[in-house]
């Protein structure tokens, strides 16, 4: 018996055999090999014993009374289900057809009579190996299924939490935004955020984190927080970008980053300001001419460069009412066909060219992707924002929760911002926060911010930097204007903008006087004010807005000093 393979583990083996002599012989051999034996003398009994005892392995005679081995094999295999219960036919049959019938009925092997104990032991061991393998596979499959279900559950929970954060902005509420995002795009790293600034401009971010799954989604939370927090407080793109970059650089590992396009759409200025770091180019679509201006990636993605090296320079493009900005993630362009050909920007431009109904652009793109590939990937994000008139100015109510008992009503303060500060610092969010300590002004925070923003940028751009707003009369001049603005600001070494704030209580409420002075050349107030209020002109819109929103406006010192007033009544 030395050649016999050692028994790994004692098995319970069912032997079904109608010949008492054979049954005794086989039982003895199998017991000697260290296994436990159950017996049956016909097929029906075998099925019954199997059901009751669940043996590991079955040795089955083919020809038996009551129920033959073939039928019993079929039933036992059915009862065993997914688990492998090896079934070896005991047979004196010789014809290949009969032997094949054994296997067809679910048998795994056969053993010819008369029995050879060595072969029998080897077969039992071989079948036992298969049985274990199958058990391991099943166990691992169940484990994977369990993990997968767990992962899906985690994603659902994370998505639910994240949807609350991501959609706390205006992405769903704004009538001028349309977007299409795969439901689990977040777990492919795609992120889409939109929110209004206090003056009614809209900030939009489309981002794409490296990688997939939860690692790609974790960076989204801090990014969204910075985006919403800073947009609501009136920070511009440059400061928001700096903060987002610094935060991601600090928290993400070196190989993770976020490609992003950040936009500021301003109905008031009829312009879109853009920063693109690593995203495919989006487009400004001029509806009147059909022209599409690409919004190229000019920067490294967010979270790569240190704060000192980060470049926050943006580009500004003019827009008319009804013009659209279209952004997309690389899932659109990288959709591959069966030959690994990518969809690519050229095919996208063809879809643009063929598009007849602007409102059906997404559907057209989806159709083109489907025709190209057969199905759309699950990391496809597209967003389109239309410049619309009459974006209402909003109060920043939710930011403040105190009751107003300690509200300051009789004070004044003056600031002087000098060249080096003007270059890199935007004082407006700070000033707004200060003024919103006055509860009576909170209702008008949007108007207040818009007026402050206009007066400040007039003082800086037309005053300190000496830029002529008439440059902005056409699209080319518009780009020229913003180029000059950046150049002159970078070279600035003298000049100032002063802001004087005076708050006095009245019988029914209070009055805020805001005076802004600059070190520039001044301007001919009479002549500028005599211009008609022209809503669709690219230049000179600022002053008309200021005149509409504040209760009084007055210039002095040859246009170098401007004073506005805001009044409020008793709080309800």
């Amino acid at each position: 018996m030395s050649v016999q393979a050692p028994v790994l583990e004692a098995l319970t083996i069912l032997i079904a055999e109608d010949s008492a002599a054979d049954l005794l012989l086989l039982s003895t051999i199998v017991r000697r090999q260290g296994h436990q034996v159950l017996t049956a003398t016909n097929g029906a009994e075998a099925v019954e014993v199997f059901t009751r005892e669940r043996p590991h392995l079955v040795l089955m005679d083919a020809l038996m009374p009551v129920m033959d081995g073939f039928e019993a094999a079929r039933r036992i295999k059915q009862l065993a289900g997914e688990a492998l219960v090896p079934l070896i036919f005991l047979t004196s049959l010789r014809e290949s057809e009969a032997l094949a019938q054994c296997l067809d009925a679910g048998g795994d092997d056969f053993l010819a009579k008369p029995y050879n104990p060595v072969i029998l032991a080897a077969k039992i061991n071989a079948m036992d190996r298969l049985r274990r393998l199958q058990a391991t596979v099943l166990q691992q499959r169940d484990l994977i299924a369990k993990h997968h279900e767990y992962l899906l559950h985690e994603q659902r929970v994370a998505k639910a939490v994240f949807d609350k954060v991501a959609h706390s902005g205006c992405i769903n509420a704004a009538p001028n935004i349309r977007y299409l995002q795969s439901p689990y795009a977040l777990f492919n790293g795609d992120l889409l955020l939109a929110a209004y600034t206090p003056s009614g401009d809209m900030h939009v971010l489309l981002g794409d984190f490296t990688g997939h799954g939860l690692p790609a989604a974790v960076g989204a939370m801090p990014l969204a927080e910075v985006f919403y927090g800073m947009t609501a407080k009136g920070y511009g793109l440059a400061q928001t970008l700096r903060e987002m970059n610094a935060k991601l650089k600090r928290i993400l590992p070196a190989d993770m980053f976020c490609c992003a396009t950040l936009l500021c759409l301003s109905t008031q200025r009829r312009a879109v300001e853009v920063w693109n770091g690593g995203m495919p180019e989006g487009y400004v679509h001029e509806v009147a001419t059909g022209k599409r201006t690409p919004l190229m990636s000019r920067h490294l993605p967010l979270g790569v460069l240190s704060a000192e090296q980060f470049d926050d320079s943006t580009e500004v493009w003019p827009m008319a009412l009804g013009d659209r900005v279209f952004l997309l993630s690389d899932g659109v362009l990288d959709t591959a066909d069966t030959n690994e050909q990518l969809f690519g920007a050229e095919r996208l431009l063809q879809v643009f060219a063929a598009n007849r109904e602007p409102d059906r652009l997404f559907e057209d793109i989806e159709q083109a992707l489907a025709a190209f590939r057969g199905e759309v990937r699950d990391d496809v994000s597209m967003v389109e924002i239309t410049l619309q008139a009459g974006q209402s100015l909003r109060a920043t109510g939710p930011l403040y929760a105190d009751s107003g008992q300690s509200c300051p009503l009789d004070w004044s303060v003056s600031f002087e911002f000098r060249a080096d500060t003007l270059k890199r610092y935007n004082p407006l969010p700070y000033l707004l926060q200060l003024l919103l300590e006055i509860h009576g002004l909170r209702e008008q925070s949007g108007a207040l911010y818009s007026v402050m923003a206009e007066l400040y940028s007039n003082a800086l751009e037309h005053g300190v930097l000496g830029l002529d707003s008439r440059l902005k009369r056409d699209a080319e001049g518009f780009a020229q204007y913003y180029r000059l603005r950046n150049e002159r600001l970078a070279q600035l070494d003298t000049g100032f903008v002063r802001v004087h704030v005076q708050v006095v209580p009245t019988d029914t409420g209070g009055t805020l006087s805001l005076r802004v002075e600059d070190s520039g050349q001044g301007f001919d107030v009479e002549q500028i004010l005599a211009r008609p209020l022209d809503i669709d002109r690219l230049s000179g819109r600022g002053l008309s807005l200021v005149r509409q929103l504040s209760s009084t406006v007055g210039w002095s010192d040859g246009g170098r000093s401007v004073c506005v007033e805001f009044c409020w009544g008793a709080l309800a």
Partner: protein
Amino acid sequence: MSVEKKVSMDGKTLTIVIKGRFDFSSHQDFRNVYEDVYPKPETVVVDLKETTYMDSSALGMLLLLRDHAGGDKAYIRVVNSSSDVRKILAISNFDKLFDIE
């Protein structure tokens, strides 16, 4: 996909050759070829001549390599990139961090 390394005779230049798809599946192999090179080479060359595809996690791996090679002080050349691969490097503006030829 395969990642191979060549160290120049003087030990100053490490060349990493990536064949096939350069994506997350090459993560470990890619790290292995530069992490155990001593002394640290002065120049690292990433040869993409036979690289057919590159995704954003490959860009992340290049950043890891740059970090390992000294961050802002590192000098890394990325050579022989195909037009498709070059497009991906260009969109991400990686030419600001790497010498791309």
